[in-house]
């Protein structure tokens, strides 16, 4: 494989060399099972607890509030199913949003088929949840509200503190999927006032196959995985020691980087440069997500009249890695549920590309995209029937290609 221009950090990140260095000794040297009585096993146990403390510190939580899971998906499943099960005598109404990750959406859907009732809150054109709409949706039998902190596709950041306040006043558990926020914005569970929060290792330069559910002290939760007494009886299964160590290290590094504040600025700089240059060079593009309340690393952009897949493949020929919609939903033919939820029509939703920058992104990545992408778009547009007939079509059925959705399209250079 030739040189790589990796701009898909919302899908997964490269493990940081320091993280790998921390993990590596736990495969062949300190391979003990933390449940063992002997010192060799107890060493593994202690190291797991040290990692738990690192994660707790990253979130401003107590170590006992940290549950290690197999990933963000399991954390989301455990939060929602675990609390739903624990509270099933209290009520069976759950509120979430239309733009959640499938780990939340499909979990809710499953519960919806098994005796629970789910309300999916709408979002506005930027992907924002309206607190007033949440307030109005709460019922007497509402037990859980699950709203993601930032959206993986368009990067919009929800007003979690405000939403969690509403939940607390109504005495309803509040869960937030913070998988995309971790390492990008400072996370403080106390300040946010959430009861549960999900993290995933591989989105913050840690390993795949590990995640965290933060569970506020006193929050009721039924275990989902049954077996040994691991994780204080809240998640059975032999601890994934190397991954836990790696995640601890990843949290430590993320905390440091956020405190220093240099990395995110640099990343934002790259993202902003790409956005500006693309808007300057390519016509008929629309940037999705909120202009300001948006993750600094994310650029979701629509190239009208052509489909994203072709663009991706053209970029792939040149070593550029980016995605259309969320990585998890590719394989399906449906356009992104997030883009539909912010009001984009079917065909436009098919035309989006997501660039997500990260710790290892450089100016060279932006250079390369600017070299490859504009001609690719042009090429694809040359064979698009919609492109050649766009004036006609705009007249004929505005439904498809008006600029209604171009909330901060071309005119956005000044952002």
């Amino acid at each position: 494989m030739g040189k790589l221009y990796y701009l898909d950090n919302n899908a997964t990140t490269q493990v940081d060399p320091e993280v790998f260095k921390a993990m590596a000794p736990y495969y062949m040297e300190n391979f003990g099972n933390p449940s063992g009585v002997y010192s060799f096993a107890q060493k593994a146990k202690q190291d797991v607890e040290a990692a738990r403390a690192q994660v707790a510190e990253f979130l401003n939580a107590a170590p006992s509030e940290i549950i290690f899971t197999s990933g963000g998906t399991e954390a989301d499943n455990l939060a929602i199913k675990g609390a739903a099960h624990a509270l099933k005598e209290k009520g069976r109404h759950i509120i979430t949003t239309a733009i959640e990750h499938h780990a939340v959406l499909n979990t809710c859907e499953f519960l919806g088929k098994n005796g629970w009732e789910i309300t999916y809150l709408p979002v506005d054109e930027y992907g924002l949840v309206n607190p007033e709409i949440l307030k109005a949706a709460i019922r007497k039998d509402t037990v859980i509200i699950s709203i993601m902190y930032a959206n993986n596709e368009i990067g919009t950041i929800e007003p979690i503190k405000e939403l969690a306040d509403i939940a607390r006043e109504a005495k309803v558990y509040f869960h937030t999927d913070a998988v995309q926020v971790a390492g990008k914005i400072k996370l403080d569970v106390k300040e946010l006032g959430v009861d549960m929060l999900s993290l995933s290792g591989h989105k913050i330069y840690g390993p795949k196959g590990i995640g965290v559910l933060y569970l506020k002290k006193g929050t009721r939760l039924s275990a989902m995985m049954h077996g040994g007494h691991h994780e204080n009886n809240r998640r059975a299964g032999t601890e994934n020691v190397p991954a836990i160590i790696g995640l601890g290290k990843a949290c430590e590094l993320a905390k440091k980087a956020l405190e220093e504040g240099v990395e995110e600025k640099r990343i934002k700089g790259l993202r902003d440069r790409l956005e500006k240059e693309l808007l300057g060079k390519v016509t008929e593009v629309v940037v999705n997500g909120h202009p300001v309340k948006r993750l600094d690393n994310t650029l979701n952009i629509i190239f009208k009249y052509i489909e994203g897949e072709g663009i991706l493949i053209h970029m792939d020929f040149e070593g550029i890695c980016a995605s259309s919609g969320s990585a998890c939903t590719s394989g399906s033919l449906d356009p992104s549920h997030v883009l539909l939820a912010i009001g984009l029509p079917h065909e436009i939703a098919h035309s989006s590309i997501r660039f997500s920058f990260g710790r290892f992104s450089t100016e060279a990545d932006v250079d390369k995209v600017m070299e490859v992408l504009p001609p690719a778009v042009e090429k694809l547009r040359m064979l698009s029937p919609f492109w050649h007939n766009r004036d006609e079509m705009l007249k004929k059925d505005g439904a498809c290609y008006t600029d209604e959705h171009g909330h901060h399209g071309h005119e956005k250079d000044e952002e």
Partner: protein
Amino acid sequence: MMQYSEKTMEYFKSMKNMGRMENPDGMGKVGNPTCGDVMWIYIKVENNIIVDCKFETFGCVAAIATSSLATDLVKGKTLEEALEVTNKRIVEVLGGLPKAKLHCSLLAEDGVKAAIDDYRSKQKK
């Protein structure tokens, strides 16, 4: 996600026969209800033979590759022969398509048929 064959990639890359045709003898506009994708096929016919064929496609990589291939396959063929270019044949030449993408090749078959239909109906007038 999708595992495309090399041949598919070649056709996608080359985009052979892509673009619009001025004053075609026949034109087929087809759309795929599953995915919302759209394909337009243009043909030029002389003595019952398709002497030129072009396409415009708003669709996935498979849709683009199959349209390119289909136009290529029917060029030089009689209308009757062209009608025998099935999606099965297209998938064969490409060396297979991912399961979820088989419907895209149908679009190409339908596009050619629609263009020939269009040509024939114009001839009747």
